[in-house]
C-alpha cells in the first residue's frame, strides 16, 4: 500500500435541482413543463430577457424552497433577496443569472442545515452550507459533440425554470458516501413533492474533490447519482496516481464524460471568476414571515427519517430494511399497502428489497409504469406460508407477477404448480436416490451436514416441487433406520 492511500479525501457537492412540480417558471407565467417541446416555443418576453421586461417571483417556488430548507434542517432567511450573477454566455438571455448569494448585504434563502446518513451502519452528518433559488439558463444544442458540431443552436425553453442550488460543506469522505448522501437527498425532495428527479436534466451535480493539502478539482454537471460515484472514484484514482508520481494537483474544472467513463479538463481555475454580484434592483427584498414558515412547516409531509423511525416501530423492522424501503418511496408505499393485509413484515420487506427490487431492475421497469396489484404479493407470501409453494417456486413466480401480471392463485390452480407433499411418493423418490448414490448416503451417515446434498438430489428429481422439510424428515428417518440396523 503506497503512503498516499492514507490521504484524506475531501468531497463537497453542489446539487442543482429543478422544481419540476411548479406550474410556471421562476419569474414569469410561462409553463415550466418544457420537456419534449419544440425549441423556443416555451418562452415569453420575460424568460427571453427582452429589453424592458421585469421578473416577478413565483411564490410557490419560494414555498417549495422553504419546505426543502426545513426538511434539510436549515436556518431560513427572514428576507428573500436576489442578486444578479454576471457572465456572458449565449444560453443566458440577460447575460446575468438571477440567483442568490451569501455574504455581507446578501442572503440565500437558507443556510446551515444538515442531512443524516448511515454509512456502513454508522450514522453520519453531512452539513448543508446554503440553499439558493435561481433561474435555469437555456440550452445549447450541438449537432453531435461540442467539438465537431458545425454550429450551435440555442433553445430557451428551459430558460427561467426554477432551480434550487444546494451546497454541502466538504464533509463527504468517499464516493460511496456521496452516493448515500445523494440518495437520501433525492428521497427527501421526492417526499416533499417538489421535484421529479428522474426527469432528464432535473438533477445535476457539481462535485468538488481534493486530497488534504492538495489542489481542489471541480467536476461539473454530472447527471446521475451513479455517475457522481463513478466520476469521484475515477478522480481519486487519477489524483492518487499523480500524487504518487510526485506531481501537483492543479486547481481546475473538469467535465465527466459518462460514455467514456473519464473526466476531462475544461479549464484551469487560477483566477476566481468575477461574477460582479449585486442585488437585483428589479426584485426588492421580500419579507419571509414567521407565519409563512410555520404554516409550511406544519404542512410538511412525513419525511424519510420520520418514516424510517415509524417503520422500525410499527413494523418492527431493523434500520437497514426500513431505510432501503423508505429511500425508495414507491417501494415503501407498496410495502405499506401489502402490510395492511399481511403481518409477517420482515418476510414482506425481505421479498421486496431483494428479489422484487432485483426483478424491477432486471426488467428495467420504471416504477411509475409498474402495473402491479399489491394483493398478488400478499397472495404469493400466503401460499408460501401455507406450504403450497416452495421458496424456489416463489422466486419463479415473482417475475411473472411483475412482468406478466399473472394471478398467483389462478396460476397455481390451473398449472398444478403445487408442492409435492405426498409422503408415500416422496419416500419412493428418496429410496431411488439412496439406491443411485450409495456414496452420498455413506457420507450422510458419517456427517449430518451432508444430508443437504441428498435433499438436493431429491429436489432435482422432482423438479423442485418437493417439500424440502418433508424430504428432510424422510431422509433422516431412513438414515436412522440404517444406523440402527447396520450397527
Amino acid at each position, binding site marked *: 500500500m503506497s503512503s498516499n492511500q492514507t490521504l484524506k479525501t475531501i468531497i463537497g457537492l453542489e446539487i442543482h435541482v429543478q422544481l419540476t412540480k411548479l406550474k410556471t417558471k421562476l419569474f414569469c407565467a410561462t409553463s415550466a413543463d418544457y420537456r419534449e417541446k419544440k425549441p423556443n416555443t416555451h418562452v415569453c418576453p420575460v424568460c427571453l*430577457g*427582452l429589453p*424592458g421586461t421585469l421578473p*416577478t417571483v413565483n411564490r410557490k417556488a419560494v414555498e417549495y424552497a422553504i419546505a426543502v430548507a426545513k426538511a434539510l434542517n436549515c436556518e431560513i432567511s427572514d428576507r428573500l433577496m436576489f442578486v444578479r450573477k*454576471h457572465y*456572458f454566455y449565449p444560453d443566458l438571455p440577460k447575460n*446575468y443569472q438571477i440567483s442568490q448569494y451569501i455574504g455581507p448585504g446578501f442572503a440565500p434563502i437558507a443556510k446551515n442545515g444538515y442531512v443524516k446518513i448511515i454509512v456502513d451502519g454508522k450514522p453520519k452528518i453531512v452539513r448543508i452550507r446554503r440553499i439558493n433559488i435561481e433561474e435555469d439558463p437555456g440550452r445549447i444544442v450541438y449537432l453531435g459533440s461540442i467539438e465537431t458540431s458545425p454550429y450551435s443552436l*440555442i433553445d430557451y425553453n428551459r430558460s427561467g425554470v426554477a432551480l434550487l442550488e444546494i451546497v454541502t460543506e466538504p464533509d463527504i469522505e468517499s464516493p460511496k458516501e456521496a452516493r448515500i448522501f445523494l440518495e437520501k437527498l433525492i428521497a427527501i425532495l421526492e417526499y416533499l413533492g417538489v421535484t421529479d428527479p428522474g426527469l432528464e436534466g432535473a438533477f445535476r451535480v457539481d462535485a468538488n474533490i481534493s486530497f488534504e493539502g492538495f489542489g481542489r478539482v471541480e467536476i461539473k454537471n454530472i447527471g446521475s447519482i451513479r455517475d457522481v460515484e463513478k466520476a469521484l472514484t475515477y478522480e481519486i484514482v487519477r489524483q492518487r496516481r499523480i500524487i504518487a508520481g510526485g506531481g501537483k494537483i492543479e486547481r481546475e474544472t473538469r467535465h465527466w464524460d459518462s460514455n467514456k467513463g473519464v473526466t476531462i479538463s475544461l479549464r484551469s481555475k487560477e483566477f476566481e471568476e468575477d461574477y*460582479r454580484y449585486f442585488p437585483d434592483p428589479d*426584485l426588492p427584498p421580500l419579507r419571509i414571515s414567521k407565519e409563512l414558515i410555520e404554516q409550511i412547516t406544519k404542512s410538511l409531509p412525513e419525511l424519510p427519517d420520520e418514516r424510517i423511525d415509524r417503520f422500525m416501530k410499527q413494523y418492527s423492522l431493523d434500520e437497514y430494511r426500513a431505510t432501503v424501503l423508505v429511500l425508495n418511496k414507491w417501494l415503501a408505499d407498496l410495502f405499506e399497502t401489502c402490510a395492511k393485509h399481511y403481518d409477517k413484515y420482515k418476510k414482506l420487506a425481505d421479498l421486496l428489497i431483494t428479489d422484487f427490487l432485483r426483478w424491477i431492475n432486471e426488467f428495467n421497469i420504471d416504477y411509475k409504469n409498474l402495473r402491479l396489484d399489491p394483493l398478488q404479493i400478499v397472495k404469493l407470501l400466503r401460499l408460501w406460508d401455507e406450504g403450497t409453494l416452495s421458496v424456489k417456486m416463489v422466486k419463479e413466480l415473482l417475475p411473472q407477477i411483475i412482468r406478466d401480471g399473472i394471478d398467483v392463485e389462478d396460476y397455481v390452480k390451473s398449472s398444478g404448480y403445487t408442492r409435492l407433499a405426498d409422503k408415500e411418493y416422496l419416500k419412493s423418490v428418496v429410496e431411488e436416490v439412496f439406491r443411485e448414490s450409495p456414496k452420498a448416503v455413506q457420507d450422510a451417515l458419517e456427517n449430518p451436514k451432508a444430508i443437504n446434498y441428498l435433499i438436493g438430489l431429491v429436489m432435482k428429481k422432482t423438479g423442485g416441487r418437493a417439500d424440502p422439510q418433508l424430504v428432510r424428515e424422510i431422509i433422516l428417518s431412513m438414515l436412522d433406520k440404517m444406523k440402527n440396523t447396520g450397527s
Partner: protein
Amino acid sequence: MPVHKLVEEFKIDPSKVFDYLDSLYDNIKRVENKIQSFITIIPQETLDRYVENLIKENKHRIDNLKLFGIPIAVKDNISTKGIRTTCASKMLENYVPPYNATVVEKIMREGGIIIGKTNMDEFAMGSTTETSAFYPTKNPWDTTRVPGGSSGGSATALASGEAPLALGSDTGGSIRNPASFCGVYGLKPTYGLVSRYGLIAYASSMDQIGPMARNVVDLAILLSVIAGHDPRDSTSVPFVQSVDYVQELYKLYHKEPKLRIGIIKEFFEGSEEPVKKAATKAVDLLCSYHECQEISLPFSKQIIAAYYIIAMAEASSNLARFDGVRYGMKIDFTNRSWDEAFTEVRTKGFGYEVRKRIAIGAYILSAGYRDMYYIRALKLRRVLKERFDQIFKDHDIVVSPTMPILPPRLGEFFKDPLRIYLADVNTVAANLVGIPAISIPVDFYNGLPVGLQAMAKQFSEPLLLYVAKQLEDRTGFRDILAQP
C-alpha cells in the same frame, strides 16, 4: 388648445380628431427637419385608420376615455408593440418589440394614440440628446442649442407643437432637464408609482416613466392614466389604486392650503446668474403666499458621485443582455468564439458614452472595488434619504432651479463632459431618494426658458401639481409654443 379641452371637443364630435391630426402633421412637416424630435413617426394614414377603428370599437364608451383621440409622443426607450424601439442606439436600430410597455397599454386603453417615438440620448445616457446614435435634437427656442436630455425629443415635440402630450423617462433628471430647457412641464413620479414594465432599463433603482405636457392640468391627466400598481413590476407600489390627479389638483387648488416651502440654498448659489434670477423671481411669487425658509443640502459633489456610481453599475448589468444573439444588431458569428462575437457586436452597437458607462460600471462592481465605490455610494444614498426625511418633517416641498445652467450649445457636452455631469446636481437627488419632482417653466432669459424644480415626499404628486398650477396662473406659462 390644451388636452383637457381637446378631449371634450373630440367626445362631442369624434371626426374632429382627424382635423386635429391634419394640423398636427402639417406642423410636424414644418418643424421636424429643423429640430428632429422623432426617431420614428407613425404615418398619418396609419393613425387615421387607427382612429377610425378606435371610434368604431369604443362607440359607447368614448365618454369614459381620458385621452380619447389625443396623440402622444413616446420616448424611444419605452416598448411599443409593432413599433420599433431603438433607445437611440445602433444596437436596437431595427428592434421591434413583440409587446407593449404597461404605460403604453394604459394610454391606449384610454383612447390615446401613439404618434411617434422620440429621440433621446442613447440608452438614456446623457443630458443633451446628443449621444443619440442617429442625430441630435435641437432646442426649438434656439436651434443652435441642445434641448436637454435624455428625454430631449419628447420635450421638443411638446415645445414645438408636434404633440400635445409626451412620455419621458427620468433616471437622474432626464424628464426635468429637457422640460426646463424647452419650457414645458415635466414630472418624475415617486419611484414605484408608474410601472417600469417595458421601459428599457438604464438604472433600474432610479428609472421612472413620467408625463410631460404644456400645462399643469394636462400633466395631471397623463399622470392619472399611467400611475398605478402593475403586478408585472415588483418595484411598483401595491397600495396605489387609481388616483385622479386632476381632481386631487383641483381640490388643493380651490382650498389653497398654505405650504411650508424649503429653498435649497446650495442649489441657488451653484446656479448661473440668469438662472438664479429667474428662479428667485418665481420663488418670490410662491413666498408671497406660502411660508418659505432657506434650507441646506450640503455634499452636492458626493451626491453626483453616488448617483453616477449607482447608475453606471446598474447600467453595466442592464445592458449586458445586448449581445446580438436574440434581437438587435446582427453580425456574422461564423467561426468565432462567443467572446469575440459579443465583443464586436457591443463595440459596434454601442456609442462611446454608453461603452464608457458600461466599462466604468463593470469596474465599480468588480471584486476589490465594489466596497470602495458601490457600497459607499449606497451609504451616501441612505444618508441622503435620511436628510430628506428630516427636511420633510418641516417642509411640504423644497424648491431649486431645475438646471443650474441655461441650455448649452450643441457640442459643448463633448468638450467638457464633467461640467455637464455636474449640471445634474439639482435633479439626481430625487432619483436617489425616490421622491417625486417636477420642473415648472417660469421664465425666459434671452429667449431661453428657465425651469424651477419642486420636490416633495413620496406620493405627494398632488402637492407638486398644486404649486405648479399656482405658478402657471401667476406666470402665464401655459401652452406656449416655440417657433423654430
